[in-house]
C-alpha cells in the first residue's frame, strides 16, 4: 500500500482550541438553544427569548449591539436575525421576528421549550464605547427598531456615559408600534422618545408624517457643538436611509459618526455564499453596521 495516498482528516481537532473564526469545525456548528419565551407584539411580529443550552457555550457567547445571529429550525431553514437584547446578558438573545415566509411563519407556530439552532454572533456592531461622552440619535423606521433595542439597552445600563439621547421612531400606524411596554422605561432613563406615525387613528395625539419631520425638529436650531458631538444610528427600510442620511449630512453630523445597518440576503454569515455582497463587500463580515463614509464609497449600498 506504499502508493496509496494518505487521507488527511481535517476533522481531527487540534489540541489547542482555536479561535472561532479560524476553526474549521465551527463553520457548521450550531449552538443548541431553547425558546424560553414567546411574546407576540403585533399581528406580524413576535419576540422570542432564546437561550443556549450548554452552560460552557453560554458563558462564551457574548455579542456587541448591532450584531446578528443565524437561527435554524431543522428541516425548515436558517435565516439571519438582529439581536434585540442587552449585550450584558451572556448566552441568551432576544429576537423580534416578522412573519414573511417559510421559516418565520413556521416559527410563529412554535412555543416555549422548542429546540432551535443558533450560529454566531456575526458581523460588526455599533461602537458604543467610542460614543461615550457624546449625544446619541437612534433613528428607526418600522422593524428597524429591533436592532436598535440592543444599543438602547446599552445606553440605559450606561446612562451616565452619554449626554442627550434621542430616539426617533417612525411607524406606519399605531397598531404596528413595537415594544410599547418599554417606552415608559426608556423615558424614565432620560431618553427622549419621539414617535411619528404615517397614518394616525383618532386616538393618536402625537405627530403625523414622515420620520424626517421629527428628525428635523430635533436637529434644527442647535449649537454647532451639538452637531459635532453627536453620533447617529440609523436602521430601517432601504428607502429611509437615503433621506435620513441626507438630512444628517446637511446638519453636518460627521460622516464617521453616522452608522447604518444594512440588510441583505444572507445564507452563511461568514463571507462564503456571496449573497450579501454590496459591490464586492460582504455585508455579513464588514457590516451589517457601516459608517456612512464607507457606505458612500460602496456602489449600490443605499
Amino acid at each position, binding site marked *: *500500500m506504499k*502508493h*496509496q*495516498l*494518505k*487521507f*488527511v482528516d*481535517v*476533522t481531527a481537532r487540534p489540541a489547542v482550541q482555536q479561535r472561532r*473564526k*479560524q476553526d*474549521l*469545525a*465551527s*463553520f*457548521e*456548528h*450550531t449552538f443548541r438553544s431553547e425558546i424560553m419565551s414567546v411574546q407576540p407584539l403585533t399581528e406580524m411580529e413576535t419576540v422570542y427569548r432564546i437561550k443556549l443550552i450548554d452552560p460552557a457555550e453560554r458563558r462564551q457567547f457574548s455579542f456587541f449591539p448591532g450584531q446578528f445571529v443565524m437561527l*435554524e*429550525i*431543522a*428541516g*425548515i*431553514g*436558517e435565516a439571519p436575525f438582529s439581536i434585540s437584547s442587552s449585550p450584558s446578558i451572556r448566552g441568551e438573545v432576544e429576537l423580534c421576528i*416578522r412573519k*414573511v*415566509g417559510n421559516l*418565520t411563519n413556521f416559527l410563529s407556530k412554535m412555543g416555549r*421549550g*422548542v*429546540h432551535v*439552532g443558533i450560529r454566531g454572533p456575526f458581523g460588526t456592531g455599533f461602537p458604543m464605547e467610542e460614543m461615550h461622552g457624546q449625544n446619541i440619535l437612534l433613528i428607526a423606521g418600522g422593524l428597524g427598531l429591533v436592532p436598535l433595542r440592543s444599543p438602547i439597552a446599552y445606553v440605559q445600563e450606561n446612562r451616565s456615559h452619554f449626554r442627550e439621547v434621542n430616539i426617533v421612531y417612525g411607524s406606519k400606524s399605531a397598531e404596528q408600534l413595537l415594544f410599547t411596554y418599554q417606552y415608559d422605561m426608556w423615558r424614565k432613563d432620560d431618553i427622549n422618545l419621539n414617535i411619528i406615525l404615517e397614518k394616525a387613528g383618532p386616538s393618536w395625539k402625537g405627530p403625523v408624517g414622515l420620520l424626517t419631520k421629527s428628525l428635523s425638529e430635533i436637529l434644527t436650531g442647535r449649537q454647532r457643538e451639538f452637531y459635532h458631538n453627536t453620533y447617529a444610528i440609523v436602521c430601517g*427600510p*432601504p428607502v429611509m436611509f437615503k433621506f435620513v442620511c441626507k438630512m444628517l449630512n446637511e446638519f453636518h453630523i460627521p460622516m464617521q459618526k453616522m452608522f447604518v445597518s444594512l*440588510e*441583505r*440576503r444572507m*445564507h*452563511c454569515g*461568514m*463571507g*462564503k*455564499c*456571496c*449573497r450579501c*455582497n*454590496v*459591490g*464586492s*463587500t460582504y455585508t455579513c*463580515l464588514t457590516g451589517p453596521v457601516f459608517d456612512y463614509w464607507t457606505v458612500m464609497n460602496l*456602489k*449600490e449600498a443605499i
Partner: protein
Amino acid sequence: MLFKTFAKEELKILFEIIAAHNRVVGPVEKARDRNNKPIYAFEDVHEFHDIQLNYTTTKLPAKRFFLPFKEDLSTFKIEDDKWQKSIDYNIDRPVVFWGLHACDINALNKLDKVLLHSVYPMPYYAAKRKNMFIIGIDCEPQPFCFCRSMGADTALHGFDLFITDLGEKYFVEILTDTAFNFLRELKTADALEEDHILYMKKVDEKKKQFTARIDTTDLTKILDMEFQSEVWHQWGDKCLSCGSCSNVCPTCYCYGVEETVNIDLKGARKTKMLYSCNVIDFAEVAGGHNFRPLRHNRLKYRYYHKHRGFVEAFEESLCVGCGRCGETCLAGITVSEVIASVKTGSKE
C-alpha cells in the same frame, strides 16, 4: 522546484501505480458535438487509455469534485421537538486529478484565498482541497482562451506534478515529496540544458497562439469610473439571466442554502447549492425588495465582483480567462468583449 524528464511510455506506468490504490479523475471524451468535435469532461477514470491527454478544454470545470453543485452541509435526526445534527464534509479518500490545465489549477489557487485562507475557512472545501493530488499538463490555447491576460497561463503552485510534452519525452516539474516518491518508480532523468531550451521554445510558441485577450491595465479603477456606463444596459439587454456562466466557471463559488424534511418526517437535511448572481432572486430580501432587480444590475455585479472586488481583497482577479463562460453563453456574451466595451464606452 525540481525538474526532471521521462520517456512518454513511462506515464502509463505512473498511472498504473497511482490508480491501483487511488481514485483518479481525468479528462475523457464524453460525446461529439454537431461538427463531430469531441466534448470533454472530467470523470472518474480506471484505464489509462480513457484519459484524453491532448484535450482542448472541458465544458464544465472540475469544480463538481470539490464544490459540488449540490451538497449536504448537515443532516438531522428528528424526534418530537428535539433534533440531533450530524455534519459530514462528504469526502472519505483522496482524489487524484490527472491532467488539469494551468487555468484550472490557478482557479483552485484563487478559491483557496477566499475559502481556505480568509476568516471562517470552509471545511467542506478544505477537506476536499487537502485531499487532492494534482497532475497538471500543458495545453494549446484555444480561440477563446485569454488566460495569458489574466496571468493564469502558467501555474506556479497548487499542484504536485506538472508535465509538459516535449515531443519525445515529458518535462516534469515536481512540487511535492509525494510526487517525488511516485516518480522514484519510473525511469526518469535530470532535466538537461537541452531540455530547458526545448521547454522554453514550447512556452514561446504557446505564447504566440493566443488570439483572445483583455487589457487589465487599471481595470479596477476603470470599472469604478464606468459604473454608470451605458454599455452595461446594452449587455443587460442581451443577457438571459440563466446563470450558465457561473455554472461553468471554475472560480464561481456563490451558493444558497435550503433545508428539507425527509419523507418519513424522522430526518432532515440542510443542502448547499451553487447559485449564480445573474439569477433574478440572488439579492432579494424579505419584503420583496430586490437589490439588483434588473438584468444589467446583475451582469454588472458579476464583473465587479470578479474584476474589481476580488482584486481589492486579494490583489488578483477572480477570473482565470478559461473562456468557458463565453463559450457557454447563449447570448454570446464574452468577458473579452464586455471588458473592451467598458473601456471604449461602446459595445461595438
